[in-house]
């Protein structure tokens, strides 16, 4: 089994984009605040559509928000 890991910069990007609250971001992308909390803490990996929504909410590309690290990188 590999040790693939998806990290993200959602928390930092929230503060860089006018100090968005978790609730404001959640409303923007159509999820609950708890989902944003789970994504920020790395306990939940979002689906591809949600990842795109988050990236668009920050006006960034998906790879600016999410980083994939596997054994080979």
């Amino acid at each position, binding site marked *: 089994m590999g040790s693939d890991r998806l990290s993200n910069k959602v928390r930092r990007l929230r503060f860089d984009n006018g100090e968005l609250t978790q609730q404001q971001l959640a409303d923007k992308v159509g999820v609950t605040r*708890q989902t944003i909390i789970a994504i920020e803490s790395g306990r939940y990996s979002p689906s591809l559509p949600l990842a795109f929504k988050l990236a668009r909410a920050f006006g960034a590309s998906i790879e600016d928000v999410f980083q994939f690290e596997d054994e080979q990188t």
Partner: protein
Amino acid sequence: MTKLQKSAWFNLAGITVLGIIGVAAILYMAKTNTRGVEYVLICIFVPVLVSPGLYIYCRKKSIESRFDERERVIHSRSLMVAAFGLTIFLACVCMLPFFVLGGQNVIKVYYLPLIFFSALFIAQFVHSAAILVMCALEDDDG
């Protein structure tokens, strides 16, 4: 508290009350051995038999429209936990009398609806409890 958690608390409370009423009714009927219990059974069983279909239909629509993707994942995981809990429960409740009483012994008939109601209760209870536990585990730094 999210809608999923509210729904789980509502289910937990509702199914507990219904479970207690159902089991109490069966035990009462068994104890008094009254005839004409068909009316009571119809009152209990018709809603029970009809409700799963309506429940699944309404629940499916509401899950898709009201809950977000993480909640849907929690919901489906909790369904698996409920199925596992139900299997364990049924294995215990059906196999224990066999081992304790032996293969040639008899059990009272009221044991069958009791298993049925208890199985419904256990499945719903474990499902709701699993949702609440999983939500709590993910929300602990919220």
